[in-house]
């Protein structure tokens, strides 16, 4: 066998992701965003002042961005009543085709203001601008476009039945994809002819308030969309309001349980999209380099603040060392830092509270004897940052292998056979997502079919499309968002 041993220098086998050629800072300008010092609510087609306020901060700098009103039960009551009036009024009588026009208009307005919305999303939530710019905002627009198309075709959603709106929907969304989650909630509800009251997350209300301005610009009849800011108490008031016909909630399993108890016997319809501990399964015949990208996309996308994150890596024991070595090299080229820098891959953790939760869980993993690998390099001095992290050497019984961390922390487990992979992947109270990596098509389909999870990706991870239903099994919730299935929770079928 010919070799080049004599002709090249032998050096230690290290890849140097160094600074021989550094990328200059490439910050996206925030001038495009006009922040108001104070935000109230959006009720009955008008912005209200609101009373007491809370602060929303930039998690990358801890700078206060604005004061935001905390909605009271009176605010919620006014919003629900406005939604009811709109339902009984022009919106309820409008044809599907006309409703569709409004949705198309909102979709186009989101596209027209895409850059501004992306910067605002990154400012308020800490996610890297390349994700808000390339994923969050385009997908939000795509959801409105997709459901706009359904508005006049609802008869085909449930063939052979008559369909109509459920009524007034109360919708509560999380802080990890603020505008995108608003779009997931608003678009199908409006396409089906409902009116709604939306409560954004208390940490990330700004893009929803900008969306309210765009909705006003789109001339949507007053009261069709109402947005009430606030935290848990505001959400409770909305959940418990007797004038609400349907609750849609995305967030933690604990709060989801609470909501389900609270509305039991009330006749309100409910969909819950809750936590997850997704398994990402790598078989030994997988395309390894692409699978490593899939691991990175699965757990480090959006700082791991993703309910469907691939946070449990199940890798076949025969390739464990190779995959781990490649993953560690790959993690060295991840750029952690300023979310507004266009070259940042991993931004800021959304809040101090979340950062502390991640730190606590990681400490428990170290205590349990796990080997922790973290991205090298400097972190910004201010703001909430956490290094992308990987635990190896832990058992399935470890706390970090079972609980949702909702941060950039991966736990690696091994398996020996496809049967064991399936068993381990399903061995969780959750069931939101899973990923399968194999070059063998038959194995992909066999394992995907055996997953007790609402979303299963084959040779990819964390890819989203408005045409595809999304939702959970078991403690990850029920109901689907996206696709034709996403219409059903917002339709009464006769």
């Amino acid at each position, binding site marked *: *066998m*010919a*070799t*080049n*041993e004599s*002709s*090249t*220098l*032998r*050096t*230690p*086998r*290290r*890849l*140097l*992701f*160094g*600074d*021989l*050629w*550094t*990328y*200059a800072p*490439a910050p996206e300008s925030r001038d495009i965003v006009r922040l108001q010092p104070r935000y109230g609510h959006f009720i009955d087609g008008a912005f209200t002042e609101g009373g007491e306020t809370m602060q929303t901060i930039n998690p990358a700098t801890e700078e206060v961005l604005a004061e935001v009103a905390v909605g009271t039960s009176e605010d919620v009551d006014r919003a629900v009543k406005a939604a009811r009036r709109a339902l009984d009024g022009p919106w309820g009588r409008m044809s599907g085709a006309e409703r569709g026009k409004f949705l198309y208009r909102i979709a186009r307005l989101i596209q027209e203001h895409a850059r501004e919305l992306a910067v605002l999303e990154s400012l308020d939530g800490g996610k890297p601008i*390349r994700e808000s710019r*390339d994923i969050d905002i385009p997908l939000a627009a795509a959801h409105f476009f997709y459901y706009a198309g359904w508005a006049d075709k609802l008869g085909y959603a449930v063939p052979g039945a008559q369909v109509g709106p459920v009524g007034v929907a109360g919708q509560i969304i999380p802080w990890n994809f603020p505008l995108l989650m608003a779009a997931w909630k608003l678009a199908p509800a409006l396409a089906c002819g409902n009116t709604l009251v939306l409560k954004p997350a208390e940490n990330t209300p700004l893009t929803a308030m900008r969306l309210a301005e765009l909705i006003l610009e789109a001339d949507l009849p007053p009261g069709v969309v109402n947005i009430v800011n606030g935290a848990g108490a505001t959400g409770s008031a909305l959940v418990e309001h007797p004038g609400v016909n349907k609750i849609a909630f995305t967030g933690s399993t604990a709060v989801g349980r609470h909501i389900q108890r609270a509305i039991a016997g009330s006749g309100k319809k409910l969909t819950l999209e809750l936590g997850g501990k997704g398994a990402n399964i790598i078989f030994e*015949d*997988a*395309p*390894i*380099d*692409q699978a490593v*990208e*899939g691991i990175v996309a699965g757990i480090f996308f959006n700082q791991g603040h993703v309910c469907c994150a691939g946070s449990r890596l199940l890798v076949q024991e025969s390739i464990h060392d190779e995959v781990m*070595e490649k993953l560690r*090299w790959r993690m060295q*080229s991840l750029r952690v830092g300023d979310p507004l820098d*266009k*070259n940042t891959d991993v931004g800021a953790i959304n809040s101090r509270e979340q950062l502390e939760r991640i730190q606590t869980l990681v400490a428990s993993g170290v205590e349990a004897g796990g080997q922790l690998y973290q991205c090298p390099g400097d972190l910004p001095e201010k703001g909430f940052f956490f290094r992308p992290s990987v635990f190896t050497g832990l058992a399935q019984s470890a706390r970090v292998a079972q609980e949702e961390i909702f941060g950039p922390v991966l736990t690696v487990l091994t398996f020996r056979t496809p049967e064991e992979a399936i068993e381990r992947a399903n061995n969780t109270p959750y069931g939101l997502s899973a990923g399968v990596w194999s*070059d063998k098509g038959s194995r992909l389909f066999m394992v995907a079919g055996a997953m007790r999870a609402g979303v299963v990706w084959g*040779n*990819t991870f964390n890819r989203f499309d408005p045409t595809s239903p999304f939702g959970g099994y078991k403690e990850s919730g029920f109901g689907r968002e996206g696709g034709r299935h996403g219409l059903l929770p917002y339709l009464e079928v006769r």
Partner: protein
Amino acid sequence: MSGIESVRPSPTVDRVATDARAAAFTTRSIKKEAKRSGLELVISMMDLTTLEGADTPGRVRELCAKAKQPMVQAPCPPVAAVCVYPTLVPVARQELSGTGIQVAAVATYFPSGQATLQERLDEVRRAVEAGADEIDMVISRGAYLRGDLGFVYDEIASTREACGEAHLKVILETGELQTYDRVRRASDIAIAAGAHFIKTSTGKVSPAATMPVTLVMLEAIRDHYLRTGEKIGMKPAGGIRTAKQALHYLVMVKETLGDAWLTPDLFRFGASSLLNDVLMQLEKLRTGHYQSARYFSLG
């Protein structure tokens, strides 16, 4: 074990995910100082190429002059090599002696490789004797596609031997191999058989170099390095025409193999029209204005 049997099994490659990864590199924002130093690096990595039936000594002398001094407006590094047909090696050798610029010759009956192995090896020896520092060989795609990978391994090993002191770049002609699995396998074979560089294309077949194909080859180089400590070079050739594209390739190399590969010893661009676009961008950075193409000499 010898020959093809000694080449380890290659991993599978997923096309969709590879394309997505390659596209991600193009979203990096390279501005200001990073852009300037990146573009100077691109020039220093360039194999300035002319491979036409109409090539003459005069044409090659023009190209060599451009290689030595790409522009007169401002200081600028010379390119890495001038790449010509074997018959024109003596001309290039004479023009470039003492400059540090390498003379590269395409040999082995470039671009098709359709000749007997003996004829192809003779051509390599003649090119080296005439003063070529680097040999760009083509593999027998016909042999590869009929499944005779052993032939491909052996021809590369024989060519490496015929090269003597000259460096060997192995052209896979990825546009004819087509699938990423084949590109990966051919890369592994070429590296095992003794290539100093692996190269995408002749420039005579479309598609020539693409980012995903180059990524697959970089991954083969990385895996070999991590296993053996031996550094193999990479040369995408054909189809890279703009400074922006070239920077995307640099980003891909940096983030796949690390900064150690950002040197002409380990990374080259095979190009002809790329140089003036890079010069134009450098002048824009220096002066703040785009200049007309007429201010940049033909190569």
